[in-house]
């Protein structure tokens, strides 16, 4: 075989290899694009207004993958579509966490709850009645708490299914609480965002509560839409089920810009694309069940009774 023949064969082989590589790259790109396009957000979890374990939505962590204490920086965020009425006249628990099997609230409690009777969104953590921190914002006073008033957009009426205030897509509101490391509910350490808007200083200028919380790192149970202790698992609202979507927990204080990014102009995002994703400890999107979108993290494996994953 002459050199010319060898050269032409080599050129032909290289061209073949190139075309195969190109095909493979195109194929890889196509597969990657299909994964990127796989994020959907059609569903949410609806917490039944019926109460008790048999109706609860929760994680019962048993492997230590979700723990925190009183001075761990963290952010909790979730989309919520309010289902309660103006006649609720009591509290509804949106996010509540205690030690696994907690008999009382004071087993390393962290909770975010709304008291309909006075239109307050409350945050509280602690280990006892004399070791707790708390803060609240109210939304119906344009002069006394104007920042929260403007952020929520509820006007002078209270938060309910007939008055959801400022919402993103599909009547959902993104509620985000960021907490720093100082074991204080003072505004410098604790912030509330309604959608992407900082609600400003809470009621207690120096933080509310009593004593100094001292929480452990036992396995935690997290409940959506009810209390997380004893046998009642109540305070789930009235009228219609309240829906939750895009629940995330972060190992840091999200900045205002990062909350804005998470709000994503009102549309729940693929959190993998968030700039702080490496600090995301848990993400539950409730597309088909309560699976954690982060590998190895605990699932909302208990979605019980009339509580269901359903269309947003």
């Amino acid at each position: 075989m002459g050199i010319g023949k060898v050269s032409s064969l080599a050129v032909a082989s290289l061209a073949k290899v190139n075309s195969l590589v190109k095909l493979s790259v195109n194929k890889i790109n196509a597969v990657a694009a299909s994964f990127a396009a796989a994020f959907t957000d059609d569903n949410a979890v609806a917490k039944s207004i019926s109460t008790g374990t048999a109706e609860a939505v929760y994680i019962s962590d048993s492997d230590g993958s979700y723990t925190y204490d009183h001075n761990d920086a963290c952010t909790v965020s979730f989309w919520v579509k309010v289902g309660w009425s103006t006649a609720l006249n009591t509290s509804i628990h949106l996010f509540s966490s205690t030690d696994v099997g907690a008999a009382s609230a004071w087993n390393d409690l962290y909770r975010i709850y709304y008291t309909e009777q006075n239109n307050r969104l409350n945050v509280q953590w602690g280990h006892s009645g004399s070791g707790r921190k708390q803060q609240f914002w109210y939304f119906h006073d344009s002069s006394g708490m104007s920042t929260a008033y403007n952020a929520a957009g509820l006007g002078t009426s209270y938060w309910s299914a007939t008055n959801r205030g400022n919402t993103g897509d599909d009547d959902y509101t993104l509620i985000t609480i960021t907490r720093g490391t100082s074991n204080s509910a003072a505004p410098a350490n604790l912030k509330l965002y309604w959608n992407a808007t900082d609600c400003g200083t809470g009621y207690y200028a120096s933080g509310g509560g009593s004593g100094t919380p001292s929480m452990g790192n036992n396995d935690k149970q997290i409940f959506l839409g009810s209390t997380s202790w004893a046998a009642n698992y109540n305070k789930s609202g009235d009228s219609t089920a309240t829906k939750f979507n895009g629940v995330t927990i972060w190992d840091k204080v999200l900045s205002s810009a990062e909350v804005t990014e998470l709000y994503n102009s009102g549309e729940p995002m693929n959190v993998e694309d968030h700039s702080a994703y490496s600090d995301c400890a848990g993400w539950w999107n409730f597309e088909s069940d309560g699976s954690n979108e982060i590998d190895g993290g605990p699932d909302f494996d208990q979605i019980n009774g009339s509580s269901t994953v359903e269309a947003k």
Partner: protein
Amino acid sequence: MNYYIVTEEIFDTLTKENISFMHKSIDKTKRLIVTIDTVNDRVRKFNNINTCSNYTFTNHSDWVGDGSGIETWELEDTEYIPEIDD
């Protein structure tokens, strides 16, 4: 602490700064209160926080809209603030 149910009219005469908890009945005619003061003109007096809470569970339709009641932690933690709670 003292635990009472009072009418709206009597509530208006009380010293608000001494009240640590206030919850209106569903029909808005009565108030369940926790106060350091002694109130003689009342609808009902409770011996302690537990009997007060239990009463609201038994009579929940008068006090809450979700079929539960007012729990003891709510009586302790939901601070009444006269300036913002009407």
